[in-house]
């Protein structure tokens, strides 16, 4: 069944609302507007304002309220319209959601799910094009997911809602209209493991989010050039799934990490460092990174494109790493 990424997200939310009375969706413009990106369009009509709550512009306030509602026995799904506004709520996420279980000596669970639309590629300029997965992936107590495929857009929410701990799900705006095949009965996916999206033996391309389809496209072209690349979708950015990463290195001995986020102190660095620590002697060459250029996102298309890892960049880099050029 062909389905857009947007529709996959919506099906997941609708299902969650149907399955559990305690679930409700809250966020700016999720109701009457239909969601900033039309993800929740129609749900207000279907579930009513008690389950689909439009909230004022008060990111700290309503994210904190979501945390409180979780403490109080509900299963809130809080939408922060885009990750760009999430710094306003970051204190709540870090000092409360991520910390309460520990601070209370194990007494308090915070089963809240935070959905954030994120990513680049739409010429939204410096304040609206952030890739802050690395900031959240640094924080113990949070589970940080990245829905880089339709399958995960459809399946992650369900599993996240079963989790007693706070979960952040990153969704990628640029992919909303993208169609893909999903089985009609697609549903819950695990939220513990990375996933080998394509097996290969010559090099591991490790990525997540908007990088996944890019890497798969690159891998396809590389196959034509005689290079058999493995593509790993990290999916779970915190806690990272070491096993999948290290297994792939043991197989391919070469790694390129691809990430849209800025190039320093990012998830790619973490992957590289873990490989270094654990399987250094398996490496045939140093792990390389292909990340976002460290610049606030410029508005013009040509500069935005230049600041992000593109399919061609991946191909070029892989070829270079394999001395194939």
């Amino acid at each position, binding site marked *: 069944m062909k389905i857009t990424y947007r529709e996959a997200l919506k099906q997941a939310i609708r299902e969650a609302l149907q399955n559990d009375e305690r679930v409700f969706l809250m966020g700016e413009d999720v109701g009457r507007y239909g969601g900033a990106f039309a993800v929740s369009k129609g749900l207000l009509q279907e579930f009513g304002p008690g389950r689909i709550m439009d909230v004022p512009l008060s990111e700290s306030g309503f994210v904190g309220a979501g945390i409180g509602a979780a403490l109080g026995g509900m299963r809130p799904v809080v939408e922060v319209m885009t990750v760009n506004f999430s710094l306003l709520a970051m204190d709540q996420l870090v000092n409360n959601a991520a910390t309460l279980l520990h601070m209370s000596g194990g007494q308090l669970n915070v089963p809240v799910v935070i959905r954030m639309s994120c990513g680049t590629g739409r010429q939204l300029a410096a*304040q609206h094009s952030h890739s802050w997965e690395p900031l959240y992936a640094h924080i113990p107590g949070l589970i940080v997911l990245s829905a880089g495929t339709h399958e995960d857009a459809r399946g992650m929410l369900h599993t996240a809602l079963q989790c007693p701990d706070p979960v952040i799900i990153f969704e990628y705006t640029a992919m909303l209209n993208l169609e893909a095949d999903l089985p009609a009965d697609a549903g819950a996916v695990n939220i513990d493991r990375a996933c080998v999206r394509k097996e290969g033996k010559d090099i591991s391309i490790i990525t997540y989010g908007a990088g996944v389809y890019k890497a798969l496209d690159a891998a396809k072209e590389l196959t034509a050039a005689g290079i058999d690349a493995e593509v790993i979708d990290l999916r779970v950015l915190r806690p990272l799934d070491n096993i999948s990463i290290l297994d792939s290195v043991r197989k391919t001995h070469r790694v390129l990490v691809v990430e849209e986020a800025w190039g320093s102190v990012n998830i790619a660095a973490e992957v590289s460092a873990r490989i270094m620590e654990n399987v250094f002697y398996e490496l045939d060459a140093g792990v390389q990174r292909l990340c976002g250029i*460290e610049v606030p996102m410029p508005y013009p298309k040509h500069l935005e494109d230049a600041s992000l890892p593109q399919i061609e960049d991946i191909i070029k880099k892989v070829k270079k790493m394999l001395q194939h050029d």
Partner: protein
Amino acid sequence: MEETSGMQTTTITDREHGMDLLYQMMRIRRFEEKSAELYTKAKIRGFLHLYVGEEAVAVGVTQALRTMDNVLSTYREHGHALSRGITAGVILAEMFGKLQGCSRGRGGSMHLFDAGKRFYGGNAIVAGHLPMAVGMALASKKQKMDNITCCFFGDGAAAEGEFHESMNLAALWEVPLLMVCENNLYAMGTAIRYTHAMQDLEKKGAGYGIESMKVNGMDVLAVEQAARLATAKIRTTGKPFFLVCNTYRFRAHSMFDAELYRDKSEVEAWKKKDPIPALMQQLLEWQLVTAADIKQLELKVETEIQQAVDFAESGTLEPVEELTKFVYSK
């Protein structure tokens, strides 16, 4: 305090001034319409937020400002930028992403800046510029500069914590700041009754001991009068002032808005209060202008906007080698 339009009759006798107000509003209107058109032609990309319907606010308030005053605005700021004297050409060039744009093309529609004109954005994090506005006013006070800072923001922004903190800081520090809330009744698709428990926003000033006033934001003369009153107070007392302009946006929030959240009839009712025909009619009534004058203004505006489009079109793109410029100064 009452709406000023209720307090005093707002009338003028100065033909030139009337013409200028009309011209400015017409220019913004035309600029916005043209922008929408250029967006559909994919000349402009990213987010585009139009000001159509709210022109009286930017134009009215700006009358009370001086060259030395600072202005900060939101992502819906073309009108403020134009009122502030940034030419339509460099604004449009910016929206085209061209090097000739007022922010060198780096900012786009949401990030118009012009340091020379003391126009400080073009800020796209809702309410994120309010604390900065307080700081700019503080800098003026500390340096004994004879200017004020004017900060535009929406009804939605007033729900953010930054509004509260900024109002309190401005009042505590007694800084020369004009806080202008453009209450267009919606924050994106969320009506004010869902975003504010207490919807007479001007009453919020009392919580900070800030003098406040509301005004009919569809009446440019009333806005001008209120703004002059407010700025006069600020300039004499050095203290902040909170001005709520009640207005309405005729078009969608942005180019991605299906407007599911409001009735067409509501929009139509508000369009009857359109500030531009309203002023035209007044000026005609008062015999300050003639139909021919208006025709001429229309032509002038049309020419200006066409020149702006030409300017933007003929602009150049920044070489990709310069990508990492402006992250740091050196």
